[in-house]
């Protein structure tokens, strides 16, 4: 799937990916690729502006960690982020049900 088509869903994808456990940018991109079965062809750099935006909205928090000599910024969901994930997931399910009814897939 093309990068442009995915951009509109990026926030939900990132929130959902971080819903299971905190991660740094590279691990998040890997997680998205794995979970989509390699379907999502996302420009990796685009996750950073999205992560910063979500952090500014207080849906994510982040902190530096050092492991194995590597310094990484780990992102995790805040309480507000968890609430947003629940709400956006609900909207997404309604949307896909409605689209399926229209498109007929």
């Amino acid at each position, binding site marked *: 799937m093309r*990068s442009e088509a995915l951009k509109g869903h990026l926030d939900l994808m990132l929130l959902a990916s971080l819903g299971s456990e905190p991660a*740094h*940018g*590279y691990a998040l*991109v890997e997680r998205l690729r794995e979970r989509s079965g390699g379907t999502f*062809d*996302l*420009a*990796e*750099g*685009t996750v*950073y*502006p999205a992560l*910063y*935006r979500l952090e*500014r909205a207080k849906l994510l928090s982040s902190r530096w960690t050092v492991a194995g000599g*590597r*310094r*990484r*910024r780990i992102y995790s969901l805040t309480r507000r982020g968890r609430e947003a994930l629940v709400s956006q997931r609900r909207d997404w399910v309604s949307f896909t049900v409605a689209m399926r009814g229209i498109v007929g897939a």
Partner: protein
Amino acid sequence: MTARERYVRELERRLPFALGLRRRALAEIREHLREGGDEALARFGPVEELADELARELRARVAVRASWLIPTLVAVFVFPFYVVPENTLPPAPWDVKPEYLAWKQQLAAGAWLVALAFAVAALVVGRVKPRLVVWPLLGSVSTLAVAVAFGSIVAVQWLDAVPGSSAALAYAGMAASLMLLVVGALVLVEAYRSALRDCGSELAPD
């Protein structure tokens, strides 16, 4: 220089300083590319597109950062203005402070209190409406400049008026105050530039 490092350097060139936020972004991206290697670089996307998106986000955060940086600076002025002189200067030789010192000292203290009030307003505005935060910050830095100017004049005149006052301490205090003021002004300029570049900002010129 590797292709990955060239990418990061180009990104650095295109991003605003953003009160230190650029450094964090570059550190994260450099680590990402180190971990993912050339494959990650190939999938990373055009540097100009990433720079545009990141710059927009960094600029949006500058206002929030400035909204607590300048109030912190203003609060620190309590040391050169009050704590340090109060604990280091010899007792004044007069019962009533000479008028030529008193009014300047009151003006400096008053201006600092106004700067503090603006700083508190900036803290609030920074959380409610970050785009407008440059105005209370501008008020805070300007009144702080007045406080520093009159505070410095008082410090110099105090040296003549009170025997035994330490000139080194007075000049060190003035230098520190001036340095803090310059830092505050630089933060303000960065916040103002970010607000101007932010599309749709109420500050943007017609």
